[in-house]
């Protein structure tokens, strides 16, 4: 009888033990993008164990005619920048990056693990993301559109699997359009004590021919305190009339 109870207990607590030995409970803290971005963007301190940089984000596998339109827009924007006439952008208008762009961690980010919830606070644009653990995933058509979308998550052993739907259709990561059927899946795991990997998969049956996938990595920054970034505080350098990013010289 005693041995049966012991087996039952072990079976019940085993998943909890597996999590505590892996990623769960170890995400809280500040993180910066890896590879490191240069002076002013992060700590400048390389990881103790050198980790290969993930490959660049590939071109979005858009359906036609969206792919041709996307390529034409990239070329047009590059030419405008070459001429010194950078085109308007949502960032210039101080709009949040939204999902998935906010997870590129242009500036450092803070992750907080609390009961039933993981909260991610991006220093860039003061963006906040709330991920509800164990909550049923929303159907895309039931999710009120938001910049960060609406995220739920579950643990698969050592991996935190986050599903996001309901990203506003005005949020175009890398100028890539999407429908309200877009679903973003992130698989986050610690690859060692200080490095967090985030495998991102974007699916959209209306706009993409296949899943669009890439990996972001973050390095832990112990003790870093996230700073305030109210982007709307100083906009007098924009020229909305000309529709170019421009200083308004007095």
């Amino acid at each position, binding site marked *: 009888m005693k041995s049966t109870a012991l087996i039952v207990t072990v079976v019940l607590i085993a998943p909890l033990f597996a999590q505590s030995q892996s990623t769960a409970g170890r995400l809280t803290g500040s993180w910066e993008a890896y590879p490191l*971005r240069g002076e002013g963007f992060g700590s400048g301190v390389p990881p103790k164990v050198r980790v290969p940089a993930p490959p660049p984000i590939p071109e979005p596998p858009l359906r036609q005619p969206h792919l041709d339109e996307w390529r034409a827009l990239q070329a047009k924007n590059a030419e405008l920048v070459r001429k010194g*006439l950078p085109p308007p952008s949502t960032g210039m208008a101080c709009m949040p990056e939204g999902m998935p762009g906010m997870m*590129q961690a242009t500036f450092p980010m803070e992750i907080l693990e609390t009961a039933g919830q993981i909260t991610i606070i991006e220093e860039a644009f003061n963006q906040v993301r709330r991920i509800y653990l164990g909550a049923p995933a929303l159907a895309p058509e039931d999710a009120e559109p938001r910049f960060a979308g609406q995220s739920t998550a579950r643990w698969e052993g050592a991996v935190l699997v986050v599903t996001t739907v309901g990203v506003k259709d005005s949020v175009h990561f890398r100028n890539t359009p999407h429908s309200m059927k877009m679903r973003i899946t992130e698989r986050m795991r610690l690859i060692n004590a200080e490095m967090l990997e985030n495998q991102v998969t974007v699916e959209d049956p209306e706009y993409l021919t296949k899943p669009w996938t890439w990996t972001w990595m973050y390095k832990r920054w112990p003790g870093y305190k996230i700073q305030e*970034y109210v982007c709307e505080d*100083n906009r007098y350098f924009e020229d909305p009339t000309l529709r170019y990013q421009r200083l308004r010289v*007095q």
Partner: protein
Amino acid sequence: MNRGLSRLALIAIVTVASAVPARAHHSFAVYEPTLQIKLSGVVTTFKWTNPHVYLEIDAPDPKTGDTRHWLLECASTSILNRAGWKFNMLKPGDKITVIVSPLRTGEPAALLKQMTLSDGSRYSNGAAAGKVTIE
């Protein structure tokens, strides 16, 4: 060094643009991509704001010698904090020397590359502003 050479030394044209890392807010393509100039002047305004800190100085134009009012664009408060700046480090009347890339339009505004205070201490404008290429 004669005056002409001295002025020439203030303006240096470089041919290699440095790699441009990611930035949060907007492009710096409105500025001359390869031209850097040195200005020495007096601070009139120091705005510690996001998405960009702004610095205004009165300084002679390197080409004409006439004093102009320059608007200098800096990085975000968070980038500058991480680069060693402080929100109250400058006040009107302070004398500073800066290396900047001016607007392509010729107007008296520029992207800051490096600032030197009167005590000789130097401050970068962060990686996104690019490297200094002149002395």
